[in-house]
């Protein structure tokens, strides 16, 4: 009757495992961080504003969209549209963090909700990949999250300081790091034919949405329709 958890489930071990596992995705975070920092300087954000936005908002795509709206003169800053844009661009997180529920016991709701601030697309994807293999813990999520947060802060500041020295990550193929990582993560999640329906439906719906609807709605639309298709297919199979 030992109350000790198995060694591999110790929080610190899981934290380091999460950070280590997230190194590949943090490379693409770093590439985008530098680009965002460079563009932010161009859009007129001060170094302090870069630190504040990366540190508090911590959402790459929302920060990119904000640069389109940002003005160097404070009196013309569109505060309402900036906040609304952040809300719309980040709506997909409703789907992402919902899938992290199994990590938290029912009595850990508040703790879990507070931790969600550090979730990003990349570390979410790594954590659900781990969960699909029957692993994945709060420590793993936090390890990857803290690493990604530090990398984002460091690289956006670096971009702002470097200015125009690095302007084009496509030159080195770094823009493909995001797609490559998420493609590999998706393949790693394959559990059998039950995944075929949700994945194909999601892909097709996302392709059509991306073509006709501006912005990042395609992630939300494809994610909702595809996962519902998967659930319906599952129910139909069990009905027979």
């Amino acid at each position, binding site marked *: 009757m030992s109350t000790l958890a198995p060694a591999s489930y110790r929080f610190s071990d899981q934290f380091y495992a999460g950070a280590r596992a997230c190194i590949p995705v943090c490379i693409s975070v770093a590439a985008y961080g530098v680009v965002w920092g460079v563009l932010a300087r161009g859009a007129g954000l001060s170094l302090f504003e870069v630190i504040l936005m990366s540190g*508090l908002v911590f959402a790459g795509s929302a920060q990119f969209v904000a640069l389109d709206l940002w003005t160097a003169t404070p009196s013309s800053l569109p505060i309402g549209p900036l906040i609304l844009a952040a809300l719309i661009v980040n709506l997909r997180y409703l789907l992402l963090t919902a899938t992290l529920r199994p990590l938290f016991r029912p009595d850990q709701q508040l703790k879990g909700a507070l931790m969600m601030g550090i979730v990003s697309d990349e570390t979410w994807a790594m954590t659900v990949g781990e969960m699909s293999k029957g692993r994945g813990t709060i420590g793993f999520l936090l390890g990857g999250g803290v690493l990604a947060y530090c990398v984002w802060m460091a690289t956006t500041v670096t971009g702002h300081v470097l200015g125009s020295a690095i302007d084009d990550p496509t030159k080195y*193929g770094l823009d493909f790091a995001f797609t490559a990582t998420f493609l590999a993560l998706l393949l790693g999640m394959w559990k059998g034919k039950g995944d075929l329906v949700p994945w194909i439906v999601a892909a097709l719906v996302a392709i059509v949405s991306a073509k006709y609807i501006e912005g990042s709605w395609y992630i939300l639309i494809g994610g909702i329709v595809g*996962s519902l298709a998967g659930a319906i297919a599952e129910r139909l199979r069990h009905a027979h």
Partner: protein
Amino acid sequence: MLTSPEALLAIFGMALVTFAVKAGGLLLANRLPREGFAASWLRHIPGAVLASLVAPALVTGSAAEVIAAAVTGLVFVVSRNLFAAMASGVLAVFLARLVL
């Protein structure tokens, strides 16, 4: 000048709505039943979201991206190593863009 009150307001507002959406997803999920249709729906979200993230980039990309995606997939299936797959994908797109 470090920043303006307007910029502070905008950044704090953006931070607040971003956190609300992230925390909201988890809290809403906690109100859904843990078995049956809702649970099965939640279980399918990760794959569907990843497929939605990847698919448009591949069909709108040039031949270089399609080749690189094939290389990425192949390396991952053979090695089961995420970093190797990502690195070969980046290298493949870099080389393919030079050649094509």
